[in-house]
C-alpha cells in the first residue's frame, strides 16, 4: 500500500511542537502586559489606588476586564477558562506578594549592619546605638544554636520512638498517641513558654539555655513525630516482610532495616523541626531571656538567642538598633533557609524516593 510505503520513507522527521506558543504570539502577549502595566500606573494616579499594591490591584483588574472583554468572542467554555485563569493567577500573585515583600524588606533593611564582625562579636561592650561596625550577634547565633541543639537532642529520640510506635509497634494506644501528637502541634508557643517557666525555670532558680531548649522541644516534638511517622509510613511493607522472612526479630527489623531506609527522611524531620522552632520568640522571652555576651553553659543563666536579640534591638527603638534588628532577622532567615535546603537535599537523596514514586 502506498501510504505504508510513504510512512516508511520518512526516516528523517523534524521534531515539531504543534502545541507550542509561537514567538510572535508571545511577543504580542508581552506587549499587552506592558500596555496594561502602564495603564495600571495611570490608574494609580487618577484613582484612590496608590503605591505598588494599588498598582497591582489595578493591573489585575485591567487583566480581568480584558479577559472578560475578549471572552465575548469565545464560547462559554473558553470564556470560563480564560476568566478562571486570570482569577487564579491573580490570587496566586497576591498570595506570594507578602512573602516576597518580606524577603526584599529583610534583605534591604538587613544588609546595612552586616560586616564580618557581626557574626563573631557580641554586645558585651557595645550598645545597640553604636556605629554598625561595632558589636554583633555572634552570642545570639551561638545561643540559638545551643538551644536548638538541646531541643533536637531531646526531641529526636522521642519523636522517632513515637513514629516507630505509630508505624511499627502499633500498640493499643496508637490512635490516642497520633491524636495527641497532632493536638500538641496546636499548643500556643506562649503557653509552652509559661509551662517551662513555671516548671524548669522556677525549680532551677534561673533562666537558662536548657529551659529555652526544653520550651522549644515542646513545640518541636509534634513536628518531628509527625514527620517521622509520615516517613516511616512510606517504607513499603514488603521491606518489613523481607526482614521477617529472613528470620529477623521485630526489633532488629525495625532498627537494622526500616530505620536505615529512612535515615535521610528522619534527618529531614529533625531539620524541619529545627526550622520551625528557631524563630520562636515568645517562649524564649519566658525561659532563656537575653544576654549581651557569649554564654556556652546551657545551665549557667540567661542566654541570648536570635529572636530575643531581634526583639530587644527592635524595642530599643533607635535607628541603629532597628538596623541591627533587621540584620538579625536576615541572619535568622538565612539560618532557616539553610536548614531547609539541607532538609530538601536530604529528602531528595532519600532512598525511599524511588519507592514513593513507584507507589504513585
Amino acid at each position, binding site marked *: 500500500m502506498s501510504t505504508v510505503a510513504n510512512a516508511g520513507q520518512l526516516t528523517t522527521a523534524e521534531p515539531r511542537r504543534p502545541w507550542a506558543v509561537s514567538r510572535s504570539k508571545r511577543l504580542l502577549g508581552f506587549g499587552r502586559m506592558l500596555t496594561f502595566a502602564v495603564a495600571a500606573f495611570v490608574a494609580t494616579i487618577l484613582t484612590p489606588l496608590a503605591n505598588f499594591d494599588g498598582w497591582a490591584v489595578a493591573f489585575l483588574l485591567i487583566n480581568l476586564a480584558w479577559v472578560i472583554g475578549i471572552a465575548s468572542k469565545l464560547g462559554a467554555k473558553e470564556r470560563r477558562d480564560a476568566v478562571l485563569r486570570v482569577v487564579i493567577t491573580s490570587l496566586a500573585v497576591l498570595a506570594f506578594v507578602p512573602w516576597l515583600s518580606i524577603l526584599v524588606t529583610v534583605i534591604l533593611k538587613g544588609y546595612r549592619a552586616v560586616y564580618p564582625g557581626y557574626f563573631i562579636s557580641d554586645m558585651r561592650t557595645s550598645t545597640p546605638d553604636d556605629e554598625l561596625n561595632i558589636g554583633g550577634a555572634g552570642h545570639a547565633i551561638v545561643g540559638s544554636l545551643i538551644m536548638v541543639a538541646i531541643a533536637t537532642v531531646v526531641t529526636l529520640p522521642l519523636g522517632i520512638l513515637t513514629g516507630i510506635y505509630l508505624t511499627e509497634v502499633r500498640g493499643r494506644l496508637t490512635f490516642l498517641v497520633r491524636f495527641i501528637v497532632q493536638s500538641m502541634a496546636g499548643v500556643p508557643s506562649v503557653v509552652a513558654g509559661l509551662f517551662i517557666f513555671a516548671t524548669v525555670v522556677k525549680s532551677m532558680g534561673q533562666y537558662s539555655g536548657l529551659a529555652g531548649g526544653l520550651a522549644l522541644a515542646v513545640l518541636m516534638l509534634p513536628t518531628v513525630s509527625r514527620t517521622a511517622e509520615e516517613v516511616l509510613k512510606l517504607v*513499603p511493607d514488603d521491606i518489613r*516482610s*523481607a*526482614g521477617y*522472612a*529472613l*528470620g*529477623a526479630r521485630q526489633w532488629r527489623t525495625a532498627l537494622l*532495616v526500616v530505620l536505615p531506609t529512612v535515615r535521610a527522611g528522619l534527618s529531614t524531620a529533625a531539620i524541619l523541626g529545627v526550622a520551625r522552632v528557631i524563630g520562636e520568640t515568645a517562649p524564649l522571652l519566658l525561659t532563656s531571656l537575653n544576654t549581651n555576651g557569649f554564654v556556652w553553659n546551657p545551665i549557667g543563666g540567661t542566654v541570648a538567642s536570635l529572636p530575643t536579640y531581634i526583639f530587644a534591638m527592635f524595642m530599643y527603638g533607635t535607628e541603629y538598633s532597628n538596623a541591627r534588628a533587621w540584620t538579625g532577622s536576615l541572619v535568622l532567615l538565612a539560618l532557616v533557609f539553610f536548614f531547609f535546603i539541607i532538609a530538601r537535599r536530604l529528602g531528595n537523596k532519600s*532512598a525511599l524516593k524511588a519507592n514513593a514514586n513507584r507507589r504513585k
Partner: protein
Amino acid sequence: MTQTQITTNQSANQQNGETSKFIGLETQGVHAWFGKHHALSNVSLRFPERTVTGLIGPSGCGKSTFIRLLNRMHEFIPSAAMAGSVLLNGSDIYAPEEDPAMIRLKVGMVFQKPNPFPAMTIRENVLAGIKLAHLKRSNHDEIVEQCLTRAGLWKEVKDRLQASGGSLSGGQQQRLCIARSLAVEPQVLLMDEPCSALDPGSTLRIEETIKELAEKITVIIVTHNMQQASRVSDHCAFFLTDGGPGYLVEADATRKMFTNPTDSRTADYVQGKFG
C-alpha cells in the same frame, strides 16, 4: 474429597549448619481466615524434598495465603486466624513454644515484588539475613560469592558489590532477593509469584535459578503462569474456589497434572479453559 498426598521418593537429607535435620514439610487440614472471611479450607499437602512444587490456580483461590502460612507470615495480618497444623521436620510450627523467627530462618521467602533493602549495598543485602538473625558466620566473602552465584547474579555484580541494591534492574533485584534468602541457609524457600513483576527475559533467568536451587533445597512457588509451572516444577498442587474458601483440588507430579489429571477441573484449568 480425598486427601491428596505427594509422597517423597527421597529420604530426608542432611543440611549444613546448625539447623536440625530436615525431615520434610507438610500441612495437615490447614484452614485460614481473615476476620470472618474463610479464605482457605482443609489443605493437606506434603512437599517432597529437593524438588520444586508449584502452587497453581485462579486468582483468589488462597495460594498466596497458603504459602504465607508455611513460614508464619500469615499472622502479620491483623485479625488473621488459622486451623490445622503445619509440620516442619515433624513438629508443628504453630505450637506455642515455637519461635516464629526460627521457623522463618528455616523457611525463607521471596516476594512478588523485588524488595532489596534500599539503604544497603548489594553485599550488605546478601548478608542482611545473617546480620538480622544474629547468626555467627565468619566467611562473609565466601557466603556472598556463593549465594550470588547460586542466584545466578555473581557474574553481573561481582565488580560492584558496594553499589546500592536499588541500582539493579528488576530481574537482578529479584535474584538479589533470592541470594539474600539463601544466605541464611533455609531448608525450604517459598516464592510468591516471584516473576509476576518481571519481563520475560528476567523471568527465564529466575526460572533457571530455581531449577538449580532445587538441587539442594525444597522450593515452593506460587505462580499464575501455566507455562512457568510446567517448566520449573516437579510437582503441582491445584487450588480452586467456588466463591467460598479456597481448597485443594489435586496435587501430583507436574507431568501427570498437565497430561492426565485426575480431576476434570484441573484439566480445564491447565488447558486454559478458565482462570
